[in-house]
Structures are given as C-alpha cells and as structure tokens.
C-alpha cells in the first residue's frame, strides 16, 4: 500500500476524526482557531482587561 492509497482509504473515517477529538475538520484548522482566540485574549489584556 502506498501513501496515496492509504490516504484515500481513510477518507471514510473523517466522521470518527471529528467525533473523537475536535470540532474542526483538521488539526491545522484547530491550531489556527486556537491561535486567533489566544491573540484576541492577548489584545484584550493589552487593551486593559484585567482578570
């Protein structure tokens, strides 16, 4: 089995991936959203938010 075939054979598992770990379709999307959320929180602190 080569890499391409094994990727294709996994397409049916997308649902499991989503249910098992995260709301997002890919780990990369999750990372980007996490960084955006962190950036917003940092900006809020720089703007004067104190917790």
């Amino acid at each position, binding site marked *: 089995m080569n890499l391409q075939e094994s990727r294709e054979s996994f397409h049916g598992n997308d649902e499991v991936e989503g249910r098992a*770990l995260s709301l997002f379709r890919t780990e990369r999307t999750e990372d980007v959203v*996490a960084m955006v959320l962190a950036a917003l929180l940092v900006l809020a602190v720089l703007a004067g938010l104190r917790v």
Partner: protein
Amino acid sequence: MKKLLAILPGFTLLVCSALLIRLGLEPWIKNHWKWGFEVLHLNAMMLSFLWGIILGNLLSESAWAFHGARTSAMILKAGVVIMGSLYSFREIGKIGQTSLLMISFFVFSTFFFVLWLGKILRVQPSLTGVMACGCGICGVSAEIAAAPIMGASASQLAYCIGVTLGFGVVEVLTYPAVGTLLTLSSHQFGAWAGTGILNSAQVLAVALAFEIDPQALKTVKVAEIFNITRVLFLPFLILILAFYISSSPNVLQRKNSGKLVMEKFPLFIIGFLCMTALTSGNSFKPDQLASLRSLMLWCFSLGLVGLGMRTDFDAIRQTGGKPLAMGVAAGLLKTAASLAAVLLFLG
C-alpha cells in the same frame, strides 16, 4: 453560524462548570479537606477533569452538551499559546537541553517498542503503527495524524484512542499522588509528566494538579516544554511510519516527504513561540502578565472539563485484547523508565 449556535449550550456548560469549580468547590476543599487538596491534588484542574468525566457519562445521550465539549482541544491549545508568555527564550533553552535528550530517547524507544510488540503479538500493522505513534509522541493527536498514513480503519483508530485516554485517566489520578509521596521537585515532576504520560492534554492536567506554586507555575512550565519537544517529533515519526507501511520505499518521493513533514507540523507551537518572543522583548507589564496567566488557567479549566466529558468509558470498555495489552505495556514501561531517569539524572 449554525455551527456556532450548536456549540453554545455545551460551551455554556463548560463555562458554568469552570466557574463553579474555581470559585466554589476548590476553595471549599482547600479549607475543609486539606488531605484531599494536598495529597490527592483535588485542585481546580483535577476537579475540572473529574467533573468533566462525571458530566460526560451523565449526559452521554445529550448531543447538545458534546458539541460544546468538542471545543475543548482548541481551548486547551489557546491556553498553551498564551502560556508562551510565561517563558523567556533563555528559560526554554535551559529546560530544552534536558528535554531534548530525554524526549528523543523515550519517543524513539517507545515507538519502536510498540512496533516490535505488535509484531510479536501479531497485531495488524496499521493498528500497531497508530498505537506506536500515540504511545511514542503525544497520544490522541498523534494517533489521528498517523491513522491516514497507516490506512487504519475507523474502529482501529477508536481502539487506539480508547486505550490512550483510558490509560491517561489512570495516570491523571495516580501521578500527582506518587509525585507527592516520592517528594519530587517541580522540575523532576514536570519532566516525568512531560515524558511519561501518553496524551498531551493529560500532561497538562497532571502538571496543573501537582502544581505547588500557582504563581510561578514551575511544574507546568517544565512539563509543557517536555511535551512540546515531543510534539515536534510528530512529523518525523509520521515520515518513518510512511516508510514502514510502504511496500516499496520508492513510492514516497522526496517532494512528498517534505510535504508530509510540513503538513503534520503542529502550527500552534508557532503561536507559543511568538508569545515567548513578546515576553523576551519585554512587551508585557507585570500586571498584564498576571492577567495572561489567569486567562490561561481559565482556558485550561474549561478545556479540562471538556476533555473529561470526552472520556467515554463505554468505548474504553470495548477496547479489549491485544491493543490494550500493547498500550498498557508501553504506558507502564514509559512511566517506570521515565521516573527512573528523572530520579537518576535530574536529582
């Protein structure tokens, strides 16, 4: 928009749980049950995780709750990004030297141990590869990254996740108490947790539970550097796996190898390093850093309730036989060997 509305009730549940635990339950236990707080480490983080497990099993049929709980991995990562502000590059360099040595040994030895065990027990190579990646690097994320490369089926992936999370629950409950009984220092415990625990989120839970100094967060800082070091190995082990599964090594072209490494690189670590760069450049005032630390702890508290909710005991119960034996053997060996290494070399 529809997706956002769907996660709102579950997310509200996470926020209410974190508020209740951090403002009500933790102070109560701290004042009324000292042994539970100091030895069992029933602080806000441990309580968040345990409460999440209770909620997840009470509301197992409630889809509304789980939509919100699925944001927990993202919230935990946001917390880790903010956590970058607690370090300077000098500190990372100092801890990183030890972590690189220990982690490279444990990542590769666990990875090849599971591959070997899979051959001995005659487990399917696809399942063995996924399990090897999960046990060797950072648990669930590594398993999900490895599954398409190995051509693993949905049930094989669910099996591996069940083993990792099931063993992780035992680790969360036992590590802090063992650390206290062995009187490990923050540095020793952080290194042990960051190396020995299979799943990244549970490293965080354990280190936060053990934390002796909530202001300096020494244990968490060491544990997370060890954890990040091993996460950085992910793209390279995925590459090894791709070669392992391929019947013809020539199939994987040079171009594909590079692409694969880039695809699997954990992007949130760049955010973490950006925050470290800002702190190293003195971009934050002390009161701003205190607020960032507090926001980070809220993120972790929310995330750990969600992580607990996603611990499905039915799925873990169904995980029987050889995969369970492989995961438990690798987990126990890693725990014992990393504890020995910490006691011997980080005394």
